[in-house]
């Protein structure tokens, strides 16, 4: 289980997150939607300590951290439980696809080089990148790079994978291949938190949709309820503008 309580985050005097509470069951897929600047990406990055939140608690699979009092060990324990997929892929530019996936395993899981590479070959094949193992990021399309990013996260077998707008940098025709890989991850019952602008994706595959605005969770529920019968005015307005755009 993932349990986040009362998460507050500010940059100097600018308050970005104003008390987020969120509970996620194992295997659940949660899509976070909301307007730009609502704090949804920041929230995601606070979960694995890429951003430091100042107040609140984070609990993932039995590891509980009080944000007002924690150590490096806590950060490392939480990061072991989390994988992340970045908007701009975040692949190591000096490493080929294979080593992007195998090196983190080798370095952080006490695995031999050979074992780590075997695992990487297998996982890259699972995301449809057989034959691309020795390509460097520059020689991969955006969709392929993002699939390597997902493979890298999967290789570490984390409790939860955090997706930070995984398709926002992609050309429309490449979005599909990444979403398909994400769907296959969902089928493997992995817990996922996905910050996304892909409303169709959120609607069709998420177990729950969370709508954030101005640093708070405005509304959350089953995709069907949020998209077809939003209760809050902010949510209605956001979804209306979104439907308008896609027409």
């Amino acid at each position: 289980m993932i349990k986040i309580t009362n998460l507050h985050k500010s940059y100097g005097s600018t308050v970005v997150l104003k008390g987020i509470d969120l509970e996620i069951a194992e295997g659940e897929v949660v899509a976070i939607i909301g307007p730009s600047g609502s704090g949804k990406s920041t929230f995601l990055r606070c979960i694995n300590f890429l951003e430091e939140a100042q107040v609140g608690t984070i609990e993932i699979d039995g590891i509980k951290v009080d944000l007002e009092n924690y150590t490096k060990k806590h950060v490392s324990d939480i990061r072991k439980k989390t994988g992340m997929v970045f908007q701009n892929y975040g692949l190591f530019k000096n490493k080929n696809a294979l080593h992007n996936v195998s090196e983190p395993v080798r370095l952080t899981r006490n695995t031999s080089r050979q074992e780590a590479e075997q695992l990487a070959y297998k996982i890259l094949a699972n995301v449809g990148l057989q034959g691309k193992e020795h390509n460097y990021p520059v020689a991969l399309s955006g969709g392929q790079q993002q699939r390597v990013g997902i493979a890298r996260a999967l290789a570490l077998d984390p409790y939860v994978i955090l997706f930070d707008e995984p398709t926002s940098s992609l050309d429309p025709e490449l979005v599909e291949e990444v979403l398909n890989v994400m769907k296959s991850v969902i089928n493997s019952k992995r817990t996922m938190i996905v910050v996304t602008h892909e409303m169709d994706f959120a609607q069709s595959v998420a177990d729950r949709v969370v709508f954030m605005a101005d640093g708070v969770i405005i509304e959350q529920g089953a995709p069907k309820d949020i998209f077809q019968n939003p209760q809050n005015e902010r949510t209605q307005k956001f979804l209306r503008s979104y439907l308008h755009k896609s027409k």
Partner: protein
Amino acid sequence: MKFDFEYMLSLFPEIIKFLPIVLYIGTLSFLLAIVIGFVFSIIIKNKVKILYPILKVIISYSRGVPTLIQIFILYFGVPQIFPSFSSMNAITAVIIALSLRNGAYLSEVFRSAFLAVDKEQYEACLSVNMTKWQALRTVILPQVVRISIPPAGNYYIMIIKDTSLAFTIGVIDMMARAKLEAAVSYKFLEAYLMVGIIYWMISIVLSFLQSKLEHAVEKPYRKEELK
């Protein structure tokens, strides 16, 4: 017009004999400059207390005072205050002066190379639970090195050429040899042209090696060579 071509050619073996000392001073200074530059860049990057303002003065001095004057200050001047330095030999003085001066310049090269590596590269390392040191070693530094090679290579060539100042404090190098020959024969043009051509050739060879090295480290970043 008087130009003794044969005499000039005959100087080549005489002068080239001192190539090892030139390469020794130049290469050692360059390697030390890399270490100094790297340490400086880390101090600058982290704005380390006390050291940072001191460093800014050192860097400003190194960049602002001509190389020759720095060598003189170090070799003739410093022993006046610290007598223990009077045992320092001329070659050591040149190496210290050149490495400090170029270390100051290289610190800027490394600093900007660190800045040029995308922040997301570091975040990606942290997201897979690498330690700071693992991130630096496996992802950040290789990219910093790649970015630094072209400018650092230029500094190496500059240092090699600057070693020709060493003769002014009594180091017997290629320049000193050429000057001696010229003084004996009064054929200044031939002697200085010869030593100039040798330096020129060295820099051509080094530029060539540098471009080979650049080509090799750029490999992961080129599209066309990958299938």
